[in-house]
């Protein structure tokens, strides 16, 4: 049977994580239908239609879906679920919120954050902050899955699948959107899709120093900016920059950890990066155990030198 894939977007553009979840769906096998739900999303639906391997895009364009609140989104997905035996989405904040709702309403288990498709009903997923990998098989009639996007390559945009309009069911009216304080990363690539990530830790000491020292390097490299939990907790960086077990999971080509000690929960969010660089004053910092290149030095000296040396 077919696969329903919930597209991730911010109301403006399709997230690259959707393309990555598409390649996970391809491994499962079956017709892939991408659901684009939101308000004013025809452009996003058009982008989704280009994804290789997609048979059809379903567009639910309705003001009640504008903020992608979980309750109306779940009702929409349940209204479509009968036609699918797999419902899948990249593990973003939106999908993490709505997918378990969908699973519960279908009375099936959810397999969270799969990192490998072993077969159409068997998946690998990390547990204990990635310190163990479990292989699980679902026995339910329908499978609800979230995908750790960093573990899959992005499907290419070479297709032109048809876009079909689906009706949004009535909003259950349980919650309402009040406001959003978003886009702290404006002008920089998305953290979960960036080829290079420059991350700062507690050693930065203040929000000002974080900006002064980390941002110039990130800008020169065209990199996204990340932060450790300690840096976010201390108010040096906004919450959506957090990389780790409970923050964002990234796997860029190059991850530069600056003044980050390397707590287990941080490593869980970045240890699948291709090349890891650690810059830290403490030669015994655990981050050096996973770093391809380690530099024991004061980041306040190294990073400006680094930025100056870049074109």
């Amino acid at each position, binding site marked *: 049977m077919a696969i329903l894939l919930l597209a991730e977007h911010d109301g403006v553009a399709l997230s690259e994580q959707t393309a990555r979840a598409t390649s996970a769906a391809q491994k499962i096998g079956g017709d892939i239908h991408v659901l684009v739900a939101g308000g004013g999303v025809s452009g996003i639906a058009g982008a989704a239609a280009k994804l290789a391997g997609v048979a059809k895009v379903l567009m639910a364009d309705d003001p009640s879906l504008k*903020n992608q609140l979980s309750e109306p989104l*779940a009702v929409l997905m349940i209204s479509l679920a009968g036609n699918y035996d797999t419902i899948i989405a990249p593990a*973003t*904040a*939106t999908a993490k*919120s709505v997918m*378990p*709702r969908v699973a*519960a*309403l279908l*009375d099936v*288990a*959810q397999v*969270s*954050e799969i990192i490998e498709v072993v077969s159409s009903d*068997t998946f690998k997923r*990390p*547990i*204990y*902050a*990635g*310190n*163990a*990998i479990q*292989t*699980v*098989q679902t*026995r339910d009639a329908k499978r609800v899955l979230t995908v750790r996007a960093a573990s899959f390559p992005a499907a290419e945009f070479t297709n032109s699948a048809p876009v079909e309009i689906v009706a949004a069911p009535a909003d259950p009216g*349980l*919650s309402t*959107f*009040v*406001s*959003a*304080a*978003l*886009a702290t990363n404006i002008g920089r690539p998305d953290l979960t899709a960036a080829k*290079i990530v420059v991350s700062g830790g507690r050693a930065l000491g203040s929000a000002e120093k974080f900006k002064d020292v980390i941002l110039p390097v990130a800008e020169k490299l065209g990199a996204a900016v990340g932060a450790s939990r300690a840096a*976010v*907790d201390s108010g040096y960086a*906004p*919450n*959506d920059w957090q990389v780790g*077990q*409970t923050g964002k999971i990234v796997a860029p080509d*190059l991850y530069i950890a600056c003044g980050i000690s390397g707590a*287990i929960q941080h490593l869980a969010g970045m240890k699948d990066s*291709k090349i*890891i660089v650690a*810059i830290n004053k403490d030669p015994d910092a655990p981050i*050096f*155990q*996973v770093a*391809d*290149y*380690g530099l*024991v*030095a004061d980041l306040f000296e190294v990073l400006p030198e*680094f930025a100056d*040396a870049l074109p």
Partner: protein
Amino acid sequence: MLAIFATSSKSCAKGIERVMKILVPVKRVVDANVKIRVKPDHSGVDLANVKMTMNPFDEISVEEAIRFKEAGKAKEVVVVSIGPGKSEETLRSALAMGADRAILIETEEQLEPLAVAKILKGIASTEKPDLIIVGKQAIDDDCNQTGQMLSALLGWAQATFASKIEVEADRAKITREVDGGLQTVELRLPAVVTSDLRLNEPRYASLPSIMKAKKKPIEKKTSAEFGIDISPRLTILKTEEPESRKAGVRVQSTVELLDKLKSEARVI
């Protein structure tokens, strides 16, 4: 009993303001600082003689509930744990933090989030809380499902990843940590909220409160009493160590680092 009576009379004096009953599920998990080991036969994670503690996100949920009570916005905080008999220790920790009473659903089975949500729904139908605060995920299975599933089964509003909860009358305003920053939503109560890291910093229980907690009631039930199917839907075929990363080389200078990244790793 006396304490409950005293606070509810205070609520009368406050007029129409809602004084909530808050339910907080807590899970006993391996302590976050323990480096876990996978069993050599790949049958699971070795939990023998490992330090166990309350799931950190649940601790945050308990703290938040207690703060509502201290602010006069909650009349009772009930904690519930579903797990082995030793979960009683976890409940005692929550009682020592300030929860009023506890419910233990004893089971030796490893329940999946859907089964846990179904049992919690059963508890919610008798306890009738106004707010259920659930940790956003347990740090053992990292599922991040239970709160959302519970909310769906109850047909209640939900807000995940809360970094701020404000309650006025029959509405709760929740600030959520989402991928692009922060989002604020308003929920109609009763509702399920899942707590994120920055909701609060949980207190340490004082010695007198630990002593006092020993006398607080823990009601014991079994999962069978709920008459629901809690059999697993997933089969765990194998548990493995992740591929390990080897430490690479130390470079001596910024110049050397740049050179390695350009000519050796070819990533910049």
